[in-house]
């Protein structure tokens, strides 16, 4: 078996005495889609914010391609090729698509000023791949539709050669057609060997896209299973009851067999 792209081992974090994430271990192989499931408040987003550098874990370690990675800020995470698309999309509404895509990583001319033309050109290229109908390059992101905003957020993540992509509730704000579009994109990125964490509280959104599912409940890992080995109902049982089916690898948060 090859080295996982990302390995998170025994991750814990507490906020004011409450353990939001408690001894959770997950991993991700190249070209694999792992869905991270659980109710709202199960700790999925917190776990993933540790990987993307927004929080620092109290305990546990992160390995990227087998090497221990020290991730303390979003900048660190990006250096390891970890890009995140947040549930809230985290776009600055008042500036245009190019400014958002390059935020924090602007292209500058040799005098140190912003090279807007080069950034717009790169934006046109990456958007042509994601959303060929996109034309509103000069307008503030506020004026765009939900799907267009989503493609800007995705463009920001993939333009910088991400190897690991984290998508937090990627289809929460989208209509059916746009959801299908995101699904297509996930398959396309997967074919390029990018590892993807999909986070969702709705199993139907992600079950068909994912190779494996990891389920969290009350901050602990219930278990991890291949989607080919388990049914949707069994995964629902993991999410709601914490009941780990035979075919899954048990985690510390699984309900004791009675």
């Amino acid at each position: 078996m090859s080295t996982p792209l990302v390995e998170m081992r025994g991750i814990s974090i507490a906020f004011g005495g409450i353990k939001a994430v408690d001894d959770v271990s997950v991993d991700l192989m190249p070209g694999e889609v792992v869905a991270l499931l659980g109710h709202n408040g199960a700790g999925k987003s917190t776990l993933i914010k540790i990987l993307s550098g927004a929080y620092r874990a109290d305990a546990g370690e992160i390995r990227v391609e087998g090497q221990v990675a020290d991730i303390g800020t979003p900048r660190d995470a990006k250096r390891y090729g970890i890009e995140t698309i947040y549930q809230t999309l985290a776009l600055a509404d008042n500036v245009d698509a190019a400014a958002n895509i390059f935020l924090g990583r602007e292209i500058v001319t040799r005098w140190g000023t912003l090279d807007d033309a080069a950034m717009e050109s790169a934006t046109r290229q990456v958007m042509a791949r994601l959303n060929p109908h996109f034309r509103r390059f000069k307008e503030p992101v506020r004026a765009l539709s939900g799907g267009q905003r989503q493609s800007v957020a995705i463009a920001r993540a993939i333009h910088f050669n991400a190897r690991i992509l984290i998508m937090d509730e990627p289809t929460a704000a989208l209509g059916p057609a746009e959801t299908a579009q995101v699904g297509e994109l996930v398959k396309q990125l997967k074919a390029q060997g990018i590892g993807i964490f999909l986070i969702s509280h709705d199993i139907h959104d992600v079950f068909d896209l994912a190779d494996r599912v990891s389920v969290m409940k009350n901050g602990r890992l219930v278990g991890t299973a291949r989607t080919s080995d388990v049914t949707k109902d069994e995964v629902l049982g993991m999410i709601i009851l914490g009941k780990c089916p035979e075919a899954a690898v048990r985690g510390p948060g699984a309900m004791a067999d009675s």
Partner: protein
Amino acid sequence: MRHLEVDPRLVGMLGALAVIWVGFDLLSGGAFLTPRNLWNLSVQTASIAVMACGMVLVIVTRNIDLSVGAMLGFIGMVVGVVQARWLPEVIGLEHPATAFIAVAVGVALGGVIGLMQGSLIAYLGIPSFIVTLGGLLVWRGAAWWVTQGQTVAPMDGRFRMLGGGIEGAIGATASWVLAALACAAIVAGMVMLRRRRLAFGFPVRPGWAEGVLMGLACLVVIGAVAVANSYPIPVGVARRMAEAQGIAWPPGGLFIAHGLAIPVIVALMVGVAMTVLATRTRFGRYVFAIGGNPEAAELSGVNTRRSLMMVFGLMGALVGLSACIATARLNAATNAAGTLDELYVIAAAVIGGTSLAGGMGTVAGAMLGALVMQSLQSGMVLLGVDTPLQNIVVGLVLVFAVWLDGAWRKRIR
């Protein structure tokens, strides 16, 4: 109009300014639109305009700075004491370096005070409203302490040039040279931008539209200089200058023009520099991103706290510069200088289209806003309107302008 791709709000503001100017001119029987009045108006606007440039960035980050007026008072006192009491003892009276040292002290002191307030806001998370409200009281008190309330005067001769007046104007020839340089820069800048967009195959304005814009911009520059150059210095002063240079006083008198005032040139240079900073640098981009969505900026790896602190530091440095202009203009440092300036500066930025919700605003708009405010005030003085009524009008105009701007923005959305 559509082909010109100009900001309709900027056009609206220029229209409002034109209405105000023509209106006052009609009401005052032609006393408003005279070279003399317009020249004075430009000098009066300079100090507020410089500070408004910094206030735009502060407000864009969803913050406010209420301390600028008090800071101006304090820094003005320090600058006055430095050049009128300390430096004469160290390097002698009217030493050529005095003015430079005084300005450097003012700008540096302002920067330090701004960074101090900014670090409280950015790193300790105290709301900017509170920090700068405290600053308003602290620095106004400090302004008194510098000399126990005594006024310091007179200022250094070269330093006084910063305040305008006859010595503070650069004369006709230099003004035309500046105008030519400015026009050349405008044309070169627009041509370069167009070439760059064409090189990437992006859509550009039609050629004629580009030409019209260039022509209009150059016309404004040339017009401003023509006005400044048709305001003669007083006969008595001109006669003395002629005698000093050994020129015979002709029977019809001599026409010696003021030309552009130094404080106005300083303010315009600050405006250009701040526009470049706001729109062409990473720092400016981050300032706007923070204003649009602080969380997104933080998650994108922008050091939001440092940027915020720097914005206040910059605001402070500009207040330092304004303090020099105001002190030089008054030819004295008083601890009441800058009283209520914070409100004029904020009003200028807001009238200029800066949104208090953050994320929106332009430096050029704020400078125009400052000019609108000053035009109103100066026009009412010309008409002999009582001071209390002046304040009432300015207050009403501020509220009306913000309502109009908000209504316009809702309509286009």
